[in-house]
């Protein structure tokens, strides 16, 4: 179990506080920030990948059906993808608690 910053002792650092695990930020659940979440009418999705290009989080990936879908672990609910989707697949709803 990785130590959080509040648990680390002075002996736990690499020299110069170098971080050796690339991309370790993925563990942080930015999805908790959301006040709105994306929903999909996948019947209109042409799998163009444009939404994935414009996501600031880089959390949109093809799902098991090949439709591009936001990973809600990281999705902050900005809604940029709604405007960029050429076929109007995506819409935002209020995030339930």
């Amino acid at each position: 179990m990785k130590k959080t910053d509040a648990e680390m002792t002075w002996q736990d650092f690499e020299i110069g506080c170098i971080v050796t695990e690339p991309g370790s930020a993925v563990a942080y659940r930015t999805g908790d920030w959301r006040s709105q979440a994306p929903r999909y009418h996948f019947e209109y999705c042409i799998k163009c990948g444009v939404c994935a290009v414009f996501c600031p989080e880089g959390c949109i990936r093809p799902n098991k059906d090949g439709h591009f879908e936001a990973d809600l672990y990281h999705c902050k609910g900005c809604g940029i993808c709604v405007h960029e989707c050429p076929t109007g697949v995506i819409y935002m709803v209020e995030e339930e608690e």
Partner: protein
Amino acid sequence: MKNYNVYAARLTPSAENFSPGHRACVGCGETLAVRLACKAIGNNVIISNATGCMEIVSTPLPSTAWRVPWIHTLFENTAAVASGVDSALKALARKGKIPDRGTKVVAMGGDGATFDIGLQALSGAMERGHDFLYLCWDNEAYMNTGIQRSSATPFGAHTTTSPSGKKSYGQHNQKKNMPAIAVAHNIPYVATASPSYPFDMMAKVKKGMEMPGPAYIQVLSVCPTGWRTQVDQSVIMGRLAVETGVFPLYEVVNGKYRITHEVEKLRPVQDYLKPQGRFRHLTPDAISQIQEKVKEDYAALKEKAA
């Protein structure tokens, strides 16, 4: 879709060398720019990053959003650190201490770190001809410290240190023409870009990577927090900046200008200013002033590119 099998967007590399989990604001245009740039620069790089939004949101100890080698030291020395890395790689490869992998140095900094406090270091690095690509994330103010003005802040914009008030209309000066300063150093490649035009941007980043010597690309980074725009409008705002001629997309290859995204008829500047809270206080007079300047500057650019 008879003859086209693939959507261009799908040709974008899927690896995220700037990983999710970073702490950027919702709808941050700058992170989108960084993320796309990372797709164009690939894995064989070393990034030297200035203090600023991107550095803070990506590297809170003990985690990092970076999947390529990355170093941050101070605010004003990105280009100097990059110079050191570049020289080290050259010396080590020449002396046979490391294999010559052709690793490219990429320096990244905000407009504050580039136009103001880091200008000296950037000028020095460009003059010395180091082999590096400098990416300036231009969100037009010191955003990470709470939206203070920089010399990249556009005329009339409200920031906390150039506020609009009873006796002021906001930023009094015109935005510093940083690409022109880069061109004046006679470096091989200078360009402006926007993540709202992702393929144009990634192509330019790739070009900057491939051309030996210094390259400078200024990327307009929409900041909903500082510009007071809706978080879902960041890509749309970037397009408006280009379509109104406020931020034209061009490149300068060995001193030769070329507009890479021609706009037939510029949209009125009002279309770009209206959705932004930082311009809300502008009088019709101020807006026409801005419109005139944009027209002038765009005409001058077209002349250079002729």
